[in-house]
């Protein structure tokens, strides 16, 4: 048995450490530990801030999924204050969200995940002519033609198309060779390039992917221009409670948004469609199918036992979250939990998640068995975020010192992440969860007539099943499936982007240019105390923000974010977290070079800054927040 540590896990957001026990004879991972090793305390910073500013502070949780937390925050505040935003603002926010998803997924695949699959060293051995031919084959074989029905066509042809000429690939190869030969490998330094996984694909696939790595690095910036138009910048665009700050006028040259500005947004949306359809999805399917054909259908872990989603993209402005308004007109009804998907359609179970689940304090809870926090002796082992006690108890490692670790303590506390639970169970969240939930709900007839987006998801799953020659129940809950579901989610988001852009234009045609509702802007119009929940299916999965407002100020702020769900430490009753389960469901060939481990962890697209929780600097219990639908919210100091 070999104890293997990977710290830092790179090509992620934030600070993550994993430790695994590998049986060297069989390559089986017998135990795995995932630890969030940094913690910033942003929720605590929120105390007493103006709730109208919450979006700006809490957006700084993460600059990779920028806008995700801003959207969670404005939705939470609007839920608390009973604000319904104007149609234009709602459509624009959905464009902001879909834009993030498209760009974030592309950057994840090419710049964070790709070097787990392909190597510049292998690319050096490719034949540029064969690579050009391969590009044609990949497009002919793996391009999936799905589109949102009836959306506008504003481009004469697809402007963003992969080059398939030998000269192009020869040029890229020459650059790669020059870097390798210089001995100054830069970002390519010190990786496990001699790992056998890199021999799984022919050299031409490596060269193709490396070329697209560079091309997407240049192009990804253009995908987020909608954030720059509507929010002034990216990362960290601006929002406003009650709508959006970007006033629209088709009569004023100085207006934040007019036709010329909308054209920039439309161009970015068209580009997103082309990049995912012509690069991302075909490349992913070419690589993924090679892995599946080589028998690599491991790494599913918790996807086989429990996945959670909140539902995505309300079609029209909604009246709130706690009252169920959010759930009434969802474009993607992935609100629910699917248990035991690994047992197939017949053996799995679906439970809906709705507004009342956010009011019932027993549904969503967090435990700290293995987190560097402690709960008072008398309290429950798991507490709702609103009742949450956050009292740090840093115990250091099993081996080493408090500031120099050798091995963390898997039987004790080992992470700054808490362990969130749904009805006592741990869940995986993310694009894969969304696809599994929609697939199961649709197949079980729980959705009635599918929305166009849900129908597209079913068509995508069907198409990939044909490519891989496997049933969805087999390929979805795997490492390849998790990575593939993200690419499908990207294609879907690109279409959703266009869909809401068309809705925005159609609404502007009616003469309605309103983007902000100011009726409840003045704190004197607010109740003395109120609370709100904002939920959003972020690129990495189900996100919830909770705010309690008292006397016009933020009294408490809590979030349960996607990476907390997936990267959490184990729970004494419910077992390992999703990262840990996935690692334990992964075969390791060379224990000293655990490429498979970092690959399966990166298939989740870790975002650690999002995942950590609040604490009191003095090591004291800060407060106990109690929210009860009958007695209201109060804070015990």
């Amino acid at each position, binding site marked *: 048995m070999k104890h293997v540590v990977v710290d830092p896990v790179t090509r992620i957001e934030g*600070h993550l450490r994993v430790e695994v026990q590998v049986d060297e004879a069989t390559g089986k991972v017998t135990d795995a530990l995932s630890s969030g090793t940094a913690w910033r305390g942003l929720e605590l*910073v929120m105390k007493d801030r103006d709730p109208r500013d919450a979006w700006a502070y809490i957006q700084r949780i993460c600059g990779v999924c920028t806008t995700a937390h801003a959207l969670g925050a404005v939705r939470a505040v609007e839920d608390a204050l009973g604000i319904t935003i104007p149609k234009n603002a709602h459509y624009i926010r959905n464009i902001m969200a879909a834009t993030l998803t498209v760009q974030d997924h592309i950057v994840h695949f090419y710049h964070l995940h790709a070097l787990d699959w392909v190597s510049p060293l292998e690319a050096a051995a490719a034949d540029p002519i064969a690579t050009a031919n391969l590009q044609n084959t990949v497009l002919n074989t793996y391009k999936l033609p799905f589109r949102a029905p009836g959306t506008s066509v504003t481009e004469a042809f697809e402007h963003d198309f992969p080059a398939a000429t030998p000269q192009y690939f020869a040029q890229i190869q020459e650059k790669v060779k020059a870097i390798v030969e210089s001995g*100054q490998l830069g*970002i390519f330094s010190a990786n496990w390039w001699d790992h056998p996984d890199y021999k799984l694909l022919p050299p031409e696939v490596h060269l193709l992917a490396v070329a697209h790595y560079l091309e997407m690095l240049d192009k990804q910036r253009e995908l987020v221009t909608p954030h*720059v138009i509507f929010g002034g910048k990216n990362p*960290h665009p601006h929002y406003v409670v009650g709508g959006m700050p970007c006033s629209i006028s088709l009569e004023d040259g*100085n207006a934040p948004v007019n036709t010329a500005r909308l054209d920039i947004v439309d161009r970015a949306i068209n580009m997103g469609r082309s990049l995912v359809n012509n690069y991302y999805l075909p490349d992913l399917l070419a690589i993924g199918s090679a892995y599946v054909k080589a028998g690599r259908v491991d790494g599913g872990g918790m996807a086989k036992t429990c996945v959670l989603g909140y539902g995505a993209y309300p079609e029209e402005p909604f009246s709130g979250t706690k009252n169920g308004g959010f759930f009434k007109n969802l474009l993607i009804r992935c609100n629910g939990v699917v248990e035991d998907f690994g047992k197939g359609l017949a053996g799995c179970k679906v439970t809906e998640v709705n507004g009342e689940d956010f009011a019932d304090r027993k549904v969503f809870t967090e435990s700290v068995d293995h987190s560097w926090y402690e709960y008072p002796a008398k309290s429950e082992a798991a507490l709702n975020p609103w009742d949450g006690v956050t009292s740090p108890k840093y115990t250091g490692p099993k081996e080493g010192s408090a500031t120099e670790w050798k091995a963390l303590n898997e039987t004790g506390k080992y992470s700054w992440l808490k362990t969130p639970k749904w009805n006592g169970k741990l869940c995986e969240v993310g694009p894969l969860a969304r696809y599994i939930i929609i697939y199961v709900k649709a197949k079980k007839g729980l959705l009635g007539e599918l929305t166009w987006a849900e129908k597209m998801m079913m068509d995508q799953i069907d198409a990939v099943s044909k490519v891989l020659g496997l049933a969805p129940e087999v390929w979805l809950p795997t490492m390849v499936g998790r990575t593939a579901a993200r690419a499908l989610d990207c294609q879907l988001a690109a279409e959703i982007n266009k869909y809401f852009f068309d809705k925005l234009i159609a609404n502007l045609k009616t003469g309605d*240019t309103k983007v902000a509702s100011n009726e409840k802007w003045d704190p004197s119009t607010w109740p003395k105390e109120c609370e709100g929940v904002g939920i959003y299916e972020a690129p990495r999965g189900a996100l919830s923000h909770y705010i309690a407002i008292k006397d016009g100020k933020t009294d408490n702020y809590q979030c349960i974010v996607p990476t907390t769900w997936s990267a959490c430490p184990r729970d004494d009753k419910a077992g390992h977290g999703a990262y840990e389960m996935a690692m334990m469901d992964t075969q390791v060939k060379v224990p000293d070079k655990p490429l498979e481990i970092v690959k399966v962890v990166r298939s989740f697209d870790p975002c650690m800054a999002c995942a950590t929780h609040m604490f009191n600097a003095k090591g004291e219990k800060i407060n106990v927040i109690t929210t009860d639908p009958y007695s209201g919210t109060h804070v015990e100091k």
Partner: protein
Amino acid sequence: MDKRESMWDLYLKKGMSRRTFVKSCVALTSLMGLSTDQVSKVVEAAEQKPLPVVVWIHGHECTGCDESFIRSGAPLASDLVLSQIALEYDHLLSAASGAPFEAHLEETIEKYKGNYILCVEGAACTKDNGVYCMSGGHTFTHLLQHAAQNAKAVIAYGTCAVSGGIQAAKPNPTGSSGIGYFTGGTPVVNVPGCPPIPEVMTGVVMHIALFGTVPPLDGEGRPKQFYGNRIHDTCYRRPFFDAGMFAESFDDAGAKAGWCLYKLGCRGPETYNSCGNLRWFQGMSYPIQSGAPCIGCSNAHFWDDGAMTERLPKFGQPIGDVDQIGAVMAAATAVGVAGHAAASVVQKKKRIADEKKNEGAGEE
């Protein structure tokens, strides 16, 4: 080190002409805000200097600065990372992980001692010996000190690295601060912003790559070429301020017409940054152009400067006449400008007083 290529070597390899090379140098000269008589210096620098080695480390941060860096339009991130610098260590882009990656960092520090550029993103966490920010099994502050003392220069990217940023906002739960306390005698370039503008981030590295020296800095260690103006001074809405034409609420007629956002809390008058002249995405927009008041994200401790949507006078000495600027335009402009300066000073004083007060409260 001998093997590293200069920019001119790369142009030769690509089979590009001397003319193209010089044209690129001219473009770079203007990008860096230098006068045209500096072109020959740029050409000289680009011909001879080997690619600088860059090490990029992360403390308490959100990776927004990395993300901003790769949004750069000129130079493109791909060109910068693969041809202008040797980025030997970066958690976001580097292929490697774990022990071999940490060993490579040590080798790089040893091999290029006194010669590499250290980029730091994120704040230094100091509470309880820094255990709230661990990486590679060590505290971040341990790594920071070690990497900074052996570097040629340090670039503090983003408001977090410069002055602590969001995690240092009250009550600063992790005892976070800017990195300046840990860099010893190594020169530091401060590049504040949350995040900084992409081309400002890449521009600072390009300056070092081309000239082998840090760009000219102001009294706060910021590159003068990017932080020499207040956003207010170069704001395209400035004429409306001078004319007394203000948006009074979000999305009112003034907001639609693009009038001044000062009354909605805009911090442009106290914020030194390039948002007004460079703007974001190569001139496409900046928050004010998109209808959102500036939140002053390049100012130290801006998170604790009061409610964002309330304008400066509420937190300092009122610029009482701002509401009457339209009536007495010329005079009011002068008074208004003086007023901003006064308000900034008063605000800073108030913040210092608040901090003192809080420190006192903490001791009770």
